[in-house]
């Protein structure tokens, strides 16, 4: 043999069952979804947020195509503001035990103690439903690097419950989606049978860990009833590749998670909020946008979303502007999500997303030209990948759906 480290897998001559399945999925109007929680959430792109951000988001979330995933160990507390506002949005509660506890084979779920008695997994799920969640998210601990045995045990215990009203949460260290572990991870998640709420774990942007991550995530979306949550526009990429729903985080800290044994590495001490720059399909610090257009304020981009009403993006400078920035982002990407979901086929969704990203990559040069700059505005790596990878892998003729 030769040492092979490229993550490629052995393949046969003809189209595999998976290739045929992908071909059928690409041609379908929407991905097949399991009964229960999957059916309730199908074809929605939700907002993933912290409880205190509820008011900022509610005006812009789409009742027909959206919803909220609110963080908090106490579901009644977490969902309280949304319910008090009388929202018609589907609600979910993420108990976020993975933020503080690593899962182990002996204890894959983070179960609170009530006095001397430990609450059961089923009781944690029931509490979410009683609090008003449309489906329950499992309180899975952080699945550590290489921890396929931990993931398998969590999936096994969750599967024993046999609940269609629950979603298996998979807060995975990004290594589990890399070339060494992906095949095992995918097989475990595919065996669960219920929707899987996927959370990527890693410092910085987990999508940039290796070139294998985005293709593997797309592959996973085609194999598993997937709901990527607590993520960035990876959500839209995966909805374009078979994910049944998704949830986009309102800020950098709720667009991925990190191993609870590690200190979160902040990119900067900048207090300005994370701002979506629509033409670039990317988030930037408000201060960065302001700095770029400091010398040419008249060129600063305006936004016509429901939150901005034509105002400029250079106005998000301080911490207190965060709510406005969150509302702006939700208002903008909610329109994208609606357009994407309106595509006639799943392949069409992917093509829409690819076109959007390709336009955004090209637009970086437009802004640089306007600002007469040679550098300072580089497309982010995932954006470039979304813009350049084939919308769907080429499918052998024999596997293609007529």
């Amino acid at each position, binding site marked *: *043999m*030769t*040492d*092979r*480290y490229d993550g490629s*897998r*052995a393949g046969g001559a003809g189209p595999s069952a998976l290739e045929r399945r992908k071909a059928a999925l690409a041609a379908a109007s929407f991905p097949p979804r399991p009964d229960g929680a999957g059916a309730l959430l199908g074809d929605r792109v939700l907002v993933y947020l912290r409880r205190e951000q509820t008011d900022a988001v509610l005006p812009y979330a789409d009742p027909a195509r959206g919803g909220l995933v609110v963080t908090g160990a106490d579901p009644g507390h977490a969902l309280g503001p949304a319910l008090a506002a009388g929202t018609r949005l589907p609600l979910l509660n993420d108990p976020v035990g993975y933020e503080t506890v690593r899962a182990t084979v002996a204890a894959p779920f983070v179960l609170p103690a009530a006095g001397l008695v430990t609450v059961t997994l089923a009781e944690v799920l029931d509490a979410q439903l009683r609090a008003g969640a449309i489906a329950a998210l499992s309180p899975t601990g952080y699945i*550590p*690097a*290489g*921890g*396929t*045995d931990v993931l*398998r045990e969590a*999936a096994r215990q969750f599967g024993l419950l046999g609940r269609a009203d629950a979603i298996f949460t998979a807060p995975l*260290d*990004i*290594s589990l989606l*890399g*070339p*060494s*572990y992906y*095949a*095992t991870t995918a*097989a*475990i998640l595919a*065996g669960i049978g219920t929707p899987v709420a996927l959370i990527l774990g*890693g410092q910085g942007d*987990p999508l*940039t*860990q*290796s*070139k294998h991550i985005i293709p593997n995530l797309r592959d996973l979306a085609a194999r598993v009833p997937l709901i990527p949550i607590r993520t960035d526009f990876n959500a839209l990429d995966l909805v374009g590749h078979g994910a049944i729903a998704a949830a986009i985080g309102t800020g950098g800290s709720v667009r991925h998670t990190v191993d609870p*044994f*590690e200190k979160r590495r902040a990119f900067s001490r900048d207090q300005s909020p994370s701002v979506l720059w629509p033409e670039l399909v990317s988030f930037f610090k408000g201060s960065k946008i302001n700095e770029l257009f400091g010398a040419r304020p008249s060129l600063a981009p305006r936004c016509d979303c429901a939150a901005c009403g034509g105002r400029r993006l250079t106005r998000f400078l301080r911490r207190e502007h965060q709510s406005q920035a969150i509302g702006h982002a939700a208002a903008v990407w909610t329109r994208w999500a609606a357009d994407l979901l309106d595509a006639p086929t799943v392949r069409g969704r992917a093509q829409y997303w690819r076109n959007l990203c390709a336009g955004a990559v090209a637009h970086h040069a437009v802004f640089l030209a306007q600002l007469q700059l040679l550098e300072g505005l580089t497309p982010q790596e995932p954006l470039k990948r979304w813009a350049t990878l084939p919308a769907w892998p080429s499918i052998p003729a024999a596997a293609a759906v007529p």
Partner: protein
Amino acid sequence: MDEALDGGTANADLLVAAREALGLTQAQLAARLTELAGSGQPVSQGYVSRVEKGALTVTGDRLGLFAAALESSPGLLASPARLWSLGDGCLYHRNRASTKASTLRRLHARVNLLRLQLHRLAEVAGEPLPEFTWEPVPAGGAFGPDDAARAVRKACGADDGPVRSVTAIAEGMGALVVTLPLGAREVDATSLHPPGEPPLFVVNSDAVPERQKYTMGHELGHVACTPGEDTDPEEMAQRFAAELLAPSGQVYADLKAAPVTPARLLQLKSSWLISATALLRRAYDLAVISESSYRRISAQTSALGWRTGEPEPLPAEQPAVVPALVRRAIDAAGGVEAAAMAAGTTAGFIRQLAGQPEPVPGQEEAR
């Protein structure tokens, strides 16, 4: 022991294997036969070819001639043994992409012959070969080679920390391990595991000890787990070796404890007893470093010359089971030469297997 002199007929497959194990062409073997016969009647390449195809039989004195030319014995060459090849699913090798097909043929011939020789030595010693009772763990679907590695560690009582000797683990499971010089860097190892027999690993002693150790882990992976339908056997063996030598749940914390640099890798090498290169790869697989960092540090270590030899080399692992078996066979046979004749090989090779140095010229034992 030499039943061929009493009427045995050469096994054509063994004649081919014995020739390929020595790296001889048919013409070179013919020349050797001609020289040994000393009758003035040359042996042609065509004759050798027909013998190897089974079109001509070889018995009696002619078989003895072949045995001498092939550094074997009539008994071995006339045995009805089966030889195993790549397609049989029990023969593996670990080599570079550039390895020549002829090198691999020679390697496969050597391991096949070695298996037969060890069987014969065990017979001489009057003891059975070790029993390999490990039930291979299926590696496919939701179960990966990591699970097999964890199971092996648990079974060996090596739950925590570095593995001091993969060879000892393999031998403890009933495998036979032999280190032989297989040439500079073309081939790392080969393994043969016929059904119902202990696996035989031949590791290239010309490779650096770090690579030998990882290679042993890789080869052990081939017998500790079985690949599923969509599992590449070589990737399976790599993942097995990685988890066996540096379990993710343990090495991760060490890899995260400080920035991964060449100097840090050397620190970890001394505690995990695996190569810095393997640790770097582990850091990437466990997402401690990104793909771009992995490439950058690989380039640094390459510039430091670590591809050919890392600083602070590890001690080479020493097999124990085969050398002990061979020494007992020598004792039982009454000497190295007798053991060599019984096994069907040379005295020098028997000494090599026994881990004994070559005798001083003039002091060789009487035949």
